[in-house]
């Protein structure tokens, strides 16, 4: 009986102490997406690096993706535990802004490798990428050199794309086509659909099918070949460079207005723009860090295509027209 009591009381004491310690150090809660928090993503390294300098506890909550994050925040409203949201992209920023849930960061970007200067009082970018069609060099000798060529060439390569209703790359392609073809987008899709093997739910399915050899090209990012090159020593993959330019995906973070840790959150955003954080990004998130120059990237990244121009539609336009554009797309694709 004594033994049990001693065990119990020492355990209780330990627990109490740990709670006390926890209570003493502040906790910063960041909502982000799953692949960020996974052990091979940036999460663990970011956590270690930030906690080393902040005397705090960093809690990364992995939600499915950018859309889920924002929706979660909306559903929770001011009751949310989140101090920061990290991982929504520019197709969602208008909505996020409209929700009124974010606070101004009052920071400036000292350096930026983005194609255009960044102007946004609520959100700061941490990485970005370009959508591109990735292919296997051994299978496809001469990829199309423009989006128009891909669309119009009847004998062109077979492609795998994602559904804009359920996936951000899918939406990205929709916006890309819209940017390039404008009013002729519907016809473009009609012609393109003949070469689409399937429209998958998300990026994973499409990429997986591509690696299985189900199609010649898959919609992914210009940085995808870097993964195969660096992590797998596989040089067979490349992205096709389109002359009209590639649509951008810029991922941002924002402070939650109802956060109890505003200063700490701001500290994190500063940290996010610093080299400490940025250098983690390339080989964990496989995107371009927002502030590092190309020369500061790991070996292998120089082999990636550099799209130009970098395309982007105005966020308010996207927010107001998205639903209608998706419906048009549905109409065309359901023929």
């Amino acid at each position, binding site marked *: 009986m004594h033994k049990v009591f001693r065990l119990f009381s020492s355990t209780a004491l330990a627990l109490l102490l740990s709670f006390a310690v926890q209570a003493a150090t502040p906790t910063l809660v960041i909502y982000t997406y799953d692949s960020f928090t996974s052990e091979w993503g940036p999460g663990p390294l970011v956590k270690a690096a930030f906690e080393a300098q902040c005397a705090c506890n960093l809690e990364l909550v992995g939600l*499915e993706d950018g859309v889920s994050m924002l929706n979660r925040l909306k559903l929770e*409203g001011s009751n949310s535990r989140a101090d920061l949201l990290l991982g929504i992209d520019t197709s969602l920023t208008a*909505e996020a802004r409209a*929700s*009124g849930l974010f606070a101004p960061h009052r920071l400036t970007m000292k350096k930026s490798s983005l194609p255009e200067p960044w102007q946004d009082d609520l959100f700061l970018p941490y990485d970005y990428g370009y959508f591109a069609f990735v292919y296997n060099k051994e299978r496809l000798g001469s990829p199309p050199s423009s989006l128009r060529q891909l669309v119009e060439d009847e004998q062109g390569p077979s492609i795998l794309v994602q559904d804009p209703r359920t996936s951000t790359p899918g939406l990205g392609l929709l916006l890309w086509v819209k940017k390039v073809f404008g009013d002729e987008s519907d016809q473009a899709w009609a012609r393109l659909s003949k070469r*689409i*093997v399937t429209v998958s739910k998300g990026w994973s399915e499409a990429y997986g*099918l591509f690696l299985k050899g189900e199609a010649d090209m898959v919609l992914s990012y210009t940085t995808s070949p870097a993964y195969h090159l660096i992590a797998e020593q596989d040089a067979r993959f490349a992205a096709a460079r389109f002359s009209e330019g590639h649509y951008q995906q810029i991922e941002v973070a924002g402070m939650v207005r109802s956060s109890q840790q505003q200063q700490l959150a701001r500290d994190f955003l500063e940290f996010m723009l610093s080299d400490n954080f940025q250098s983690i990004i390339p080989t964990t998130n496989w995107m371009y860090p927002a502030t590092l120059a190309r020369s500061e990237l790991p070996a292998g990244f120089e082999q990636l295509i550099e799209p130009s121009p970098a395309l982007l539609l105005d966020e308010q336009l996207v927010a107001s027209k998205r639903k209608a554009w998706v419906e048009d797309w549905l109409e065309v694709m359901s023929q």
Partner: protein
Amino acid sequence: MSGLNSRAIAAGLVLAVLALIVLAPMAGLLNLSGIPGYEPGDLRFWQSAYIRRVLFFSFWQALLSTLCSVLPAILVARAFALLPDFPLRGLLLRLFALPLVVPAVVAVMGVVSVYGSGGWIPLGRSLYGLNGILLAHVFFNLPLAVRLLLPQWQTIPQHHWQLGEQLGMNAWQRWRFLEWPAVREALPGVLLLVFMLCLTSFAVVLTLGGGPKSTTLEVAIYQSLRFDFDPAQAVVLALLQLSICTLVAILTLKLQRLPEVEITLTSDLKPVTIRQNSLNIMLILVAGVFVGMPLLSMLIDAFAGPLWQVIGNTTLWQSIGNTLFIGLSAAVFSVGAGWFLLQYSASLSLTGKTGKARLLDLAGSIVYVVPPLVIGSGMFVLLSPHVDVFAWVYPIVITINALMGLPFVIRSLGPALRQNHARYHYLCQSLSLQGWNRFRYLEWPLLRRPLGLAAALATALAMGDLGVIALFGTPHTATLPLLIYQQLGAYMIPQATVTALLLLLLSLTVFWGLERVIGGKADA
């Protein structure tokens, strides 16, 4: 009479909990005027042409898939039943438990490995369309249907087989007089279950469907809730889906004949050996190959991958632990809830109130079609003002998974429990054999096997779940399916295939273990 009352109370409690879990979140989602940036959409959208098309396609692909899965399953189950000494029979039946466990995205890869352009039976681009959807659905559901229908042959008394032989019945007459009445009892339930599975099948339809022509109601709900952030619309669509399913359920359950058993004193249910029939052997082999091929391809892919790297990872083992915990806990609740519902349903049918009994079955089954996304989001809305939702992840995930497992429990445990009740209830009453004693001496020994199957199914399902766990941001915990999904999303496809293999092996072990421990040694 007190027996009936306590059953009624237990069943009532279960129903109340079910209703709460399903309806409260939906109500929560409908009542969202306080959400910033939320503009209610036009609720009459459901009359639009788009939704009509979606409805039609959802229904059509589910119907076709169900027929293509269940009708052959009857023949295959029959083949298994008539060949009790077939070598590898046990192994094949274990194999048939696997497709249920595999996360949809992994299964899709498996199907593509076999039937895609680079596969063993290349179908090329015609795979992506209704063909692909049917193939994948049959892969998922035929084995399940076989396992749910097979026990019915055990309910045919040996004397019937003997009489059939003596009276000179041919195979068709044997089917008509002996087998069909036994099968008919479980068939409507199985049809309904498979229909629901196909109706709510998301990743398969979207990825193998080839394009937006293959949009189901689940996709529309997903779209409403996530991209459009229109919870009201999502709820309305979810209710629409629920109503369709209820209609289908009412129709199929009407066809279900509850057993008209002779009240007997003994039960001689020894299996009957019929002469070897080459057609039946062929059927079993074809079914085995059809189900085995995608699984085999997953195995091959996995062995080509970084096996040791994945196994050596501590996160993997943590995930295994979490997966087991969630799976088994959910199963406990599923089986418990199913047990109480079925007990009351059996009492009702014994006293002639078959209509009510059917309604009860229906209630337990139909909850499956309410999308977990809707329930999950609704729970968020209800709970987050009051509690730290992240601390409640496990209870919520376990509860929703228990809900999802309930129809499987009802299908696998139902027929045997009803028969058992019909046979022995009066006897028990005359002996005042109730409660724990009744369970211990009568129900446990006689219902062990279907209980084992029910527990195994519920566990396997919860272990393979991706949809529910993905909704709830878990800071520290991952499950195997979530791990697979994370790996897939991070270019780590070879690792994902290895993890998928591990999930399969784990599920196989747990399935076998549960069937053995609960169900006892298999004798046929």
